[in-house]
């Protein structure tokens, strides 16, 4: 690989330049979001114009005149409110800000160790009339829900009735007891519900409380998760921060490593790459860094909508790794060495595409027993034939109208070769030039995304788009990110679940190569920002269950449960928005064509802003666990929603 020298690090920022406001789209787009605002505020003028041409005095009198400071509450106003809690009317968000700040400070204080947890040292966070039970159950009260050689998981019993008392220090000490003696402690509160008394004198917030303690000698880790309803005493007149007046624990769970180990997984990337220069230069820097130094017109973007594929590229029976990259950075193929380390594939292997790519699959498309490669690029899918040794040649290109994201392969017509289903998200960004930005409409149930496509393999690298004749064109303008095949009804053919952003998902039942969307009847529409889907048997009953990645959003939960969120909107629509922020979904297969939504009951909904998730049995106990990749956009500031 050729590396170009970068200038030495000697930049000094010019004294503060103007900070520009406004978004590109809002400035230039005449008919996207800003238009509803434009036309709304212009009504007055147009009405005045109508008045001017009005014939009868009656018309004139009822015709509105221009009101300059018209408080039109359009969509934009609502969106602004979502992003600026200080906007009048969102007192609950203003309360959240100060309460969360108090909790952050308290967490920081508690992390310093038990010595500081006295009534005096914590008095600034707690009101004098404080009451709360002991927040950590006695060991004898705990119910063990899981135990093996690796982990012990214990919870408070369902009928747990903790002892009430009035000393905050006692409450906290009981909760932090399992962390006593830990070398490194982490405590975090995440507030996701706020309810404010109408007169503004009292408030209750609900928080996820997470703690982690690492012990050395012997190595072990303790992790606690609790949900607390926290009542706040507010002072109406002064600027003093709110104080906690009571805490009611809603749930409690503690888990520990059981063996002499402090974690199940360790990061061995560095050893796998053995100090490779390419790894250092290409895989250590984040995309923000590249996006600041590469021209945006070559497809460079930093959102990280790039995935990877594992498969045997060079025919040595060992899985290799192929990484997709945004435009301007080449896709990377690393071959596995016998010892588990990686080497760069030879330079002329034909996989180092520099266009913006999204995802890739290693699959044998021509049934010659080697792994061909398909790469989802800008608006195409490249089909690359493997010569058997890991050298790839372009054999075809499938064209998609919008912005294809992912591909999932299966032989849907059981003719012996692999067909391809491609999720086309839709062109949210309008390619280059923000004039063409499009928005999901309506936001909670958008049906203006790109059309997904099923390509039938006709042999000899010929593929036909059979979306329509297969029936997959139903309900097919969703903003689809991911799909996965599974015979959910155990009838011998493969059905297809499609996870869609901004709204409902699809479950296409396969009846002899013809598909019907039965998501609603099956109870798996999951109206949410669907990011991805995976199948597994969560309860080992022999029927495939579904796990869908969505977004658990603290802000979304807090806001959508307020009365003033979308006033006047019907409760069903509001429910959709609330559901939007709920998080990941686990649907248990009832075996009769329907599913049971077990997301919250199973404790798997809080997967944050989730992307990939996967079932896998990571401790060989015969039960499939779930791993979730999450987090949207972490940058230098800490001002997260």
């Amino acid at each position, binding site marked *: 690989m050729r590396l170009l020298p970068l*200038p030495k690090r000697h930049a000094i920022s010019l*004294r503060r330049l103007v900070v520009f406001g406004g978004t590109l789209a809002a400035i230039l787009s005449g008919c996207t979001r800003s238009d509803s605002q434009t036309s709304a505020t212009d009504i007055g003028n147009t009405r005045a114009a109508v008045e001017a041409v009005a014939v009868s005095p009656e018309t004139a009198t009822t015709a509105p005149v221009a009101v300059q400071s018209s408080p039109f509450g359009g969509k934009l106003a609502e969106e602004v409110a979502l992003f600026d809690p200080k906007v009048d009317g969102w007192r609950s968000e203003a309360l959240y800000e100060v309460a969360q700040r108090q909790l952050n400070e308290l967490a920081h204080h508690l992390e310093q160790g038990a010595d500081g947890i006295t009534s005096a040292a914590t008095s600034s966070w707690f009101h004098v009339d404080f009451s709360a039970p002991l927040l950590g159950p006695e060991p004898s009260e705990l119910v063990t829900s899981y135990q093996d050689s690796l982990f012990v998981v214990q919870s408070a019993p369902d009928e747990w009735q903790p002892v009430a008392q009035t000393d905050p220090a006692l409450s906290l000490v009981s909760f932090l007891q399992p962390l006593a003696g830990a070398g490194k402690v982490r405590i975090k509160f995440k507030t996701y519900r706020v309810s404010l008394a109408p007169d503004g004198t009292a408030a209750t917030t609900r928080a996820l409380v997470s703690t982690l303690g690492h012990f050395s000698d012997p190595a072990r880790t303790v992790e606690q998760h609790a949900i607390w309803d926290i009542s706040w005493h507010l002072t109406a007149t002064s600027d003093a921060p709110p104080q906690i007046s009571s805490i009611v624990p809603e749930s409690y769970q503690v888990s520990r490593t059981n063996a002499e180990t402090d974690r199940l997984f360790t990061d061995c990337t560095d050893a796998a790459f053995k100090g490779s220069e390419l790894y250092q230069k290409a895989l250590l820097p984040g*995309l923000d860094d590249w996006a600041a130094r590469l021209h945006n017109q070559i497809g460079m973007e930093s959102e990280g909508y790039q995935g990877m594929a594992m498969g045997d590229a060079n025919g040595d029976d060992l899985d290799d790794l192929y990484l997709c990259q945004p435009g301007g950075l080449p896709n990377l193929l690393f071959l596995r060495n016998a010892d588990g380390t990686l080497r760069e594939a030879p330079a002329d292997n034909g996989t180092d595409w520099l266009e913006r790519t999204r995802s890739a699959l290693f699959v044998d498309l021509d049934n010659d027993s080697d792994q061909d490669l398909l790469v989802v690029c800008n608006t195409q899918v490249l089909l690359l034939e493997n010569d058997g040794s890991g050298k790839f040649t372009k054999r075809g290109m499938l064209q998609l109208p919008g912005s294809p994201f992912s591909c999932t392969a299966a032989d849907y017509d059981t003719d012996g070769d692999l067909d391809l289903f491609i999720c086309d998200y839709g062109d949210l960004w309008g390619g280059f030039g923000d004039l063409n930005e499009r928005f999901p409409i309506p936001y909670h149930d958008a049906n203006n995304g790109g059309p997904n496509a099923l390509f039938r393999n006709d042999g000899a690298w010929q593929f036909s788009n059979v979306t329509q004749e297969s029936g997959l064109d139903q309900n097919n303008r969703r903003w689809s990110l991911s799909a996965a095949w599974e015979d959910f009804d155990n009838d*011998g053919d493969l059905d297809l679940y499609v996870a869609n952003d901004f709204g409902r998902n699809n479950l296409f039942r396969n009846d002899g190569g013809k598909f019907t969307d039965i998501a609603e009847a099956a109870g798996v529409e999951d109206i949410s920002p669907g990011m991805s889907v995976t199948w597994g048997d969560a309860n080992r009953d022999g029927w495939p269950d579904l796990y869908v990645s969505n977004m658990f959003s603290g802000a979304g939960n807090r806001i959508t449960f307020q009365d003033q969120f979308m006033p006047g909107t019907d409760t069903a629509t509001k429910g959709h928005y609330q559901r939007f922020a709920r998080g990941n979904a686990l649907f248990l297969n009832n075996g009769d064509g329907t599913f049971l939504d077990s997301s919250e009951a199973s404790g798997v909904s809080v997967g944050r802003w989730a992307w990939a998730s996967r079932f896998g049995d990571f401790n*060989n*106990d015969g039960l499939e666990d779930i791993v979730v990749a999450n987090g949207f956009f972490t940058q230098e500031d800490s001002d997260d929603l």
Partner: protein
Amino acid sequence: MAEGKSFSGRERNSFFLNTGSGKFADISGLSGFDYLDDARSICLGDWDFDGALDFWAYNRNSPRLRLMRNTSSSAAGSESRHWVALRLKGVTCNRDAIGARVEVTTPSGTQFRTLRAGEGFLSQSSKWLHLGLGNDSGIEKVTVRWPGSPEPETFTAVTSNTFQILEQGTATATQWMPPSGSPPLDPFDQESSPVDETARIVLAARPPLPPLEILDGIANTGKPLLINVWATWCGPCLEELSAMIARASEFKQKGLDIVLLNADDPTDSDRPNKVAKTLGKLNSSFENRIADERTVSILDAFQRALTQRQRPLPLPASFLVDSEGRVAVIYKGKAEVDTVLRDLEMLESGPDAWREQAAPFAGQWYQHPPQPNPLRIAMKFLDLGEAKLSATYLERFLATYADTMEPRSALADVYFALGRAHSTDGQDSAAAGAYQSAIKADLNYRKAYVELGHMLLKRNSFDAADRLLSRAVQLDRSDADTVVLEAMARLGMQKFEDVEKLCRFALTLQPDHLTARYNLAFALQQMKRHREAADTYAGVLKLANGQIMAANNLAWILATSPDDSLRNGREAVRIIQQLCDSPAGETQPIFWMTLGAAHAEAGDFVNATGAAQRALQLCSSTGIPKGSTLPATLQEQLLRYQQSKPVRD
């Protein structure tokens, strides 16, 4: 986010342990995968063949990649846990056997796995199927249902804690031996890579340099030019300058002009003196110009438009401009003389060779190099309040590229942006001309029809507006805003039935479209369908109770409708009184007029008279459109109130 803001960032990856009781336990911390990464993709596979499932995670931020190695095989007690890994080989079905389902039966029951290619987010995992067997070491039965085969095939000789290959039709598993002697992969916490603010940004498609008065006589001379932004207080600037001055003859020989733009504090009265002294000391022969605040702002906006993650223009910074006045490279931080000379030599290479320079690593492209695109730059200038500059920039761009731009919609984009720039600059007729050019470039360019239609609507040219807007609706019937604009044109044409039809259609597209609902109510009111109008206004208020005109009109109907069962003077007073009491409403004669009618309907002619008189006062004090019939109407109403008669619509 382009400016460096987080959004749902610093979230820890999650791991849920299946406890077998219908519940999962959040053991993200115990798993060790609880990094704060913006993780995206996950691929599973037993990478080190130790019988425990590992995975790779791919991130947006630094470090991009993590191999999460499962340590459980070396934990005490792991010998009591069993597993099997299976790989399928299709013979009559697809060779990868994608879609096949394997069932494994042990004393404690049967488990299955289905082989998939592509699931999760942009991820493909290993084709090895990994099954944990708990405490069961014996495998009783293994069956595979191959895609397209109705009968499952049973495999014998599958032993636990091994890797087995199951080939279709053979009925016997073959053990696969992983490579032996693998050294352990040692754990090491990867450090986030430090952010490097310096950069050499090669512009794959070169945008024209913005017109800057300060460069008069220097830019656009047909020779390449290096613009160096520097300040006397900036150490690295001076180091860079010394290096360039030392090799000034090489630049000259290669035909490169160099101009320095000094960016010292403009409020410093000693600035010219400092600059002269510094340049004298350095023995500089380069042309130097004193940059004003605006020039620096424009250059900053220009460079921000060229990268997705935008960072401020640092000092020093340089712009390499080619002989045709297009910017080819931006150097942030010190530009090395050798690098500049090498880039200078490459300037005349073709677009393909030049694009290679824009990528930091080698690789292949399957598409042609991009054409320059001025849109983001023009938008940045608009953001900066430089509408005229934005328009000039686009016009210059068009002068060079209009004939060659492909596709035509891209050309239309540029004309459309020009229209926006002119319109922001207050040049309405120039804007209209640009929108017309956009339509000429692309007859289906919907947004231009909308903008032109909107402009005509504001000028009361309702018929002309209607023609354009109906074409826009034809081009995309899914955009509620355009439909409502057309409805407003029809409103101006007094075609109330059309307004009703269009607004109702818009509401099917977007039920919460306020303007559609308001216009619908208004049209119904004009058609004297008072009850429907009142209901619709009430609907508007339900969506947004701050909709004051809807409130006014609703109160007017309640006060004046000929329909006895609809009129409700007290309710009308209640509604309109709030408006008259509000800061925005207390000076509006129309609200006071409505209040008068409401009081009259409620039988309170004293207050009705008072309100009408206040309305008349406001007409003269606040000014109303010329030729308005409002004062005359109010006089009529006053007469009626004196006779204790309410107003009827």
